[in-house]
């Protein structure tokens, strides 16, 4: 299968690889997927006092599309408010990276990781987690 240039770019030069201090109250961590499924994503956000994401980091175990999806997600998250970040849809990632149908689950995982990180941050700071009603395509 041929990968799109954007997937190859993110895979070869992944943005924002790394680890934030998960014990900090400003940091939300989302760990989604499972090793036996061949994909695990860990996405972390650091949120400032205005509810704006000022830093985002990821590490991903998975195929090139999974790595590219999470790399792209961190790029998009930086500078976004929490509310705007919640609106990132997996199909936006599919479109941006031109993922083929067999790789849509990678984008779903990235969206799940964003939401998991935001909810981790919310719970840490005394807010209820947001339950997504979304049914993935």
């Amino acid at each position, binding site marked *: *299968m041929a*990968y799109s240039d954007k997937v190859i770019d993110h*895979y070869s030069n*992944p943005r924002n*690889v790394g*680890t934030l201090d998960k014990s900090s109250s400003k940091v939300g961590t989302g*760990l*989604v*997927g*499972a*090793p*036996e*499924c*061949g*994909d*695990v*994503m*860990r996405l972390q956000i650091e949120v400032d006092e205005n509810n704006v994401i000022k830093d985002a980091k990821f*590490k*991903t*175990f*998975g*195929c*090139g599309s*999974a*790595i590219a999806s999470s790399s792209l997600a961190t790029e998009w998250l930086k500078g976004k408010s929490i509310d705007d970040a919640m609106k990132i849809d997996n199909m936006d990632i599919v479109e941006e990276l031109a993922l083929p149908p*067999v790789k849509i*689950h990678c984008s*779903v*995982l990235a969206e*799940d990781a964003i939401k998991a990180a935001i909810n981790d941050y919310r719970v840490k700071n005394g807010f209820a987690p947001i339950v997504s009603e979304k049914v993935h395509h």
Partner: protein
Amino acid sequence: MDLPIYLDNNATTPMDPRVLEAMLPYFVQKFGNSASRNHAFGWVAEEAVDYAREQVAQLIGANEKEIIFTSGATESDNLALKGVFEMYQEKGNHIITMTTEHKAVLDACKHLEKLGARVTYLSPQPDGLINLEELVAAMSQETILVSIMYGNNEIGVIQPVKEIAKIAHQFGALFMTDATQAVGKIPVDVIADGIDLLALSAHKMYGPKGVGALYVRRKNPRVKVTAQMDGGGHERGMRSGTLNVPGIVGLGKACELARLEMQQDAERLSKLRDKLENSLLELEESYVNGNREHRLPHTANISFKYVEGEGLMMAMKDLAVSSGSACTSASLEPSYVLKSLGLSDDLAHSSIRFGLGRFTTEAEVDRAIEVTKNAVTHLRELSPLWEMFKEGIDLDSIEWAEH
């Protein structure tokens, strides 16, 4: 060095130029139908087919009359399994095989189950080898066929065919082997090994695609299979269809070259394979899959824990290799062969198969070592699992959300 480097010789091999040379006259000048008995065009083709039949027979210690030409090992496997089941169903309906067989065997068996066969699928030991005691325990009066592959395509493990054949024969069953990966790579002798039916393919031994053979024993016992392709009664009535003369000539030439050169090829390739394997095992948390003693000289299957196979292959784009991960398929199921060995799904997802071949050079292997090491290191830097492992977190203690 030409890139990418081809290290997927278990999938297919490049054709040896000497094979192509032997085949070329049989397309345009000597195009005859080997079944045309009444003119020179037919005789020339028939002579070429007869010669190729001898070349194939010689490689496996058979008589040329015991060689049935087919379109490849998949057809040979199907003909053997379905043909034996149909021919011997009055004697019994039980077939024994293994979970690590090629799909051509497994799916043919599944088909036969629908037609009333009882099939036992034996699991291998963790090193990929058959447990002979379990085989004995599975045998019964109704067992008509034991079908166990000679050398495994994914992990290269060589089964103890001689012992398997003995057990099958003690119970009055036939022994068939899919020897696609073994023939031409290691010595195979149907008499010494006690093989009754054997499937082989040309394109795994530097011959053309689309041609193979089934060995069907003619003496002690005389084995018969019911044809699965009806028509002109070619190949002693077991496989109708005009013979693929150029392909068969190519198969014959490939067999002859293998007979003359396989020993030196095997010695050279096992040294290169060991170099590759030992260098890659220097990486932490890397494991060889399958028995390291009883195996084909050109195959190495290695799991690199905490990196995913498909992602890894992308970082190894200068190498043409194969992964045990099947993330591209909708099922996300990793290799069933590796899972049969008892590998966890995550380790099966993290495996790469290297298949060396006649044209693999030492410089290519050195490059492959470098590329693989860099790729594994790069992906581990990206891997949350690697980070957790390094922090001493037990990954089994985490509740993963399976998707």
